[in-house]
């Protein structure tokens, strides 16, 4: 993460504050910052979402675009299911050191984290539905995330934005019929119905998980750490929880200290509690975001979602 | 000095801080002394001139016999080779710290004002060091991002070995001159007092 340099006095203030249950921006240790969600601003992509975590207009800002492409099956690949390819890119507007090749290391870390949560079948997406014709053609979902600003809690914002983008994704319908070519062999053929109205959503997008990152500061831990708090964190634990209250992935980060096993089970319990509230909040925001998706006006001014102020 | 040689691995509880002092190779965490390296546990009876606290606590430390790699700390005496010189500073590759070899050379610089204690502003780098000289110096600070700051102000610090233009090794004839025995040419250096 872009390293913020804090003086010892500031660090001490934050640590003692957290241990007394009081944080720099007035939040309790388990309160999360306000989230604003917009979908559908990239009309050429099959699904897109912009998620910004942070109150008073300052915060982590992530834009995710989902593009579906048909891929021909090759030997060695799984037979009857599609695949998801994640790719996270940090823009130099987030931090000056991300210019040129500066962001390679953090891109790899975030891409692997996103792939671990959303990539496999533990994400709840029904990959079998993505297969068009077994051993012949299948859908590939390219999830491209662009991190515009880093103000703490990038992992959570990334999963929020990806979940919103996948929920908003529309795949064109595919018609499959068997064609017997001249040598009498029946072969399945498919063609993509290129019609804006006739599109279907992704199966199982509802069961996609949400992630919460717990940062250990001093002896206590906080959720959704701000940039200053992340600079002071000794260890952090990212827990991805699915709507069915299952744990999809756990990953510990942070270089300075490990954490006690007892704290671990406490954190997983709090993660479940928080997850319930997060899913409720997500559905409310997503509903409001899709209202803004601009289906109303005739020529979809999909750009408008950037235009009104957050 | 009673020392039953018990081999300990890092992280082993050795004793309480009330009973022992923690020596090299150990660390203290909430009142307990733990071993921090793989070696033999040794207990050393308190020497006469330890600090004047009332109870004389024996020192507990862990000893390792194979070479331990040293890193430069403030005040340690180093041996290094001059790599480059420019009018303001000489950059030195530090090879030995307090007579322990370094794993790889550390980078240090001797600023022109740290060469000599007296008449600091009359010192000329060209008359003090040349690339290739071996010098003995003292670490005066951890320095900047890349290199440690060294000083050769003491008499026993400075050039200990140098080669003349003609390529033969020279002998110090005064604190600021060295002579090439073969070609009798004299070159100016800031020499270290030879330690008899």
């Amino acid at each position: 993460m872009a390293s913020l340099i804090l003086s010892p006095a500031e660090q001490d203030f934050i640590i003692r504050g957290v241990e007394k249950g009081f944080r720099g921006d007035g939040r309790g240790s388990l309160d999360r910052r306000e989230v604003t969600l917009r979908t559908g601003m990239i009309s050429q992509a099959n699904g897109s979402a912009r998620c910004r975590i942070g109150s008073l207009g300052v915060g982590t800002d992530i834009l995710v675009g989902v593009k579906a492409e048909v891929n021909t099956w090759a030997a060695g690949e799984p037979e009857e299911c599609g695949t998801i390819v994640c790719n996270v890119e940090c823009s130099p507007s987030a931090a000056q050191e991300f210019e040129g090749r500066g962001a390679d290391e953090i891109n790899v870390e975030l891409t692997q984290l996103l792939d671990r949560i959303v990539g496999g079948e533990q994400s709840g997406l029904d990959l079998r539905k993505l297969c068009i014709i077994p051993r012949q053609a299948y859908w590939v979902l390219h999830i491209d995330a662009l991190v515009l600003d880093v103000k703490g809690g990038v992992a959570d914002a990334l999963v929020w934005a990806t979940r919103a983008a996948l929920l908003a994704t529309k795949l064109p319908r595919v018609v499959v019929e068997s064609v017997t070519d001249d040598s009498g062999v029946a072969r399945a053929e498919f063609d993509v119905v290129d019609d804006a109205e006739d599109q279907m959503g992704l199966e199982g997008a509802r069961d996609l998980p949400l992630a919460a990152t717990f940062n250990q500061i001093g002896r206590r831990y906080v959720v959704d750490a701000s940039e200053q708090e992340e600079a002071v964190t000794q260890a952090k634990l990212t827990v991805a929880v699915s709507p069915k209250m299952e744990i999809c992935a756990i990953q510990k980060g942070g270089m300075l200290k490990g954490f006690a096993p007892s704290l671990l089970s406490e954190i997983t319990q709090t993660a479940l509690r928080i997850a319930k509230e997060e899913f409720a909040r997500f559905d409310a925001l997503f509903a409001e975001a899709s209202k803004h998706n601009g289906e109303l006006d005739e020529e979809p001014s999909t750009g408008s979602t950037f235009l009104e102020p957050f | 000095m009673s020392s039953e040689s018990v081999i300990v691995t890092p992280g082993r509880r050795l004793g309480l801080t009330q009973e022992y002092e923690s020596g090299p190779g150990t660390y203290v965490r909430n009142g307990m002394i733990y071993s921090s390296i793989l070696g033999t546990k040794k207990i050393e009876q308190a020497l006469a001139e330890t600090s004047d606290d009332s109870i004389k606590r024996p020192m507990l430390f862990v000893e390792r016999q194979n070479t331990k790699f040293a890193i430069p700390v403030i005040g340690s005496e180093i041996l290094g080779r001059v790599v480059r010189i420019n009018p303001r500073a000489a950059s030195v590759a530090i090879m030995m710290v307090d007579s322990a070899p370094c794993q790889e050379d550390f980078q240090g610089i001797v600023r022109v004002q740290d060469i000599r204690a007296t008449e600091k502003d009359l010192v000329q780098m060209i008359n003090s060091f040349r690339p290739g000289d071996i010098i003995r110096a003292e670490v005066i600070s951890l320095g900047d991002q890349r290199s440690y700051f060294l000083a050769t102000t003491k008499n026993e610090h400075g050039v200990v070995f140098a080669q003349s233009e003609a390529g033969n090794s020279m002998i110090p004839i005064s604190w600021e001159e060295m002579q090439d025995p073969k070609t009798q040419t004299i070159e100016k250096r800031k020499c270290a007092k030879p330690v008899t």
Partner: protein
Amino acid sequence: MSANIFDRRRVNGPPRSVEPLYTDEGDVKPFTNGGRADGRSLDQLRPIFIKTGPLAVQPTFSPTAPSGSAYYEQGKIRISCAVYGPRQGRKSNPRMGSFDCDFQYAPFSCSWKRRPHIKGADEKEIALILEQAMAPAIRLEAYPKACIDAFVTVIESDGKFATISAAINCISAALADAGIELYDIVAACSMSLNASQWVSDCNQAEEDVSQCSLFVSRMPSADEITYLLQQGKTMPDQTDRAVQTCSNSCARVYAVLSRYLQASMEQPAS
């Protein structure tokens, strides 16, 4: 049609290349009748072999000998690690030393297809995991402005999560051998969930079949978990149970490690 973009440095291969056809000898189904293919019980670890010492392993590229090195075997997994340091750090900070890790699969080491000599994204990420797992155990404040480098090479791997935990054990042994100050030895162990049963130390076949896998790395003396990674879906109580059994097996691995290290000190390395 030869690529029309001119890449000055790389020799472009033939435009079309096809997968070599090979028939893999179908190995035994992992969990046939409840038991495991190689007859181990559910929470039994594979046998561990360790060898530390100056010449255990010497990567060719480095002119000076490593300050510590270790060779570690666990079942079919074989890993070598060389530790250099404390030495001049690139991005050094004056208060604390830094620890840097480099992880590399040997091209022949694993079953899935690998591109030689180009670092895959997973290798970069595992290097980061190893750094974050080992760093809490090293007394970095004893080495201000210096840096400690560990180079890990996987000679043969059998089970992705098992390989990562074996690599952590191997680095711990190498650091102890190098005489670098540690708070404690880090021991790691991995498990996989198969038909709602946790199986410890799974090989590649068992891991492919399982719904979820998890690994824990732990410092027993301070009872601190330095790294925890779970991939796959589980119920919360299953995760707690897994972490519990995994910590116990970490303690067993820790015992093996420290017994070996003590023995290696008694008769100095040959």
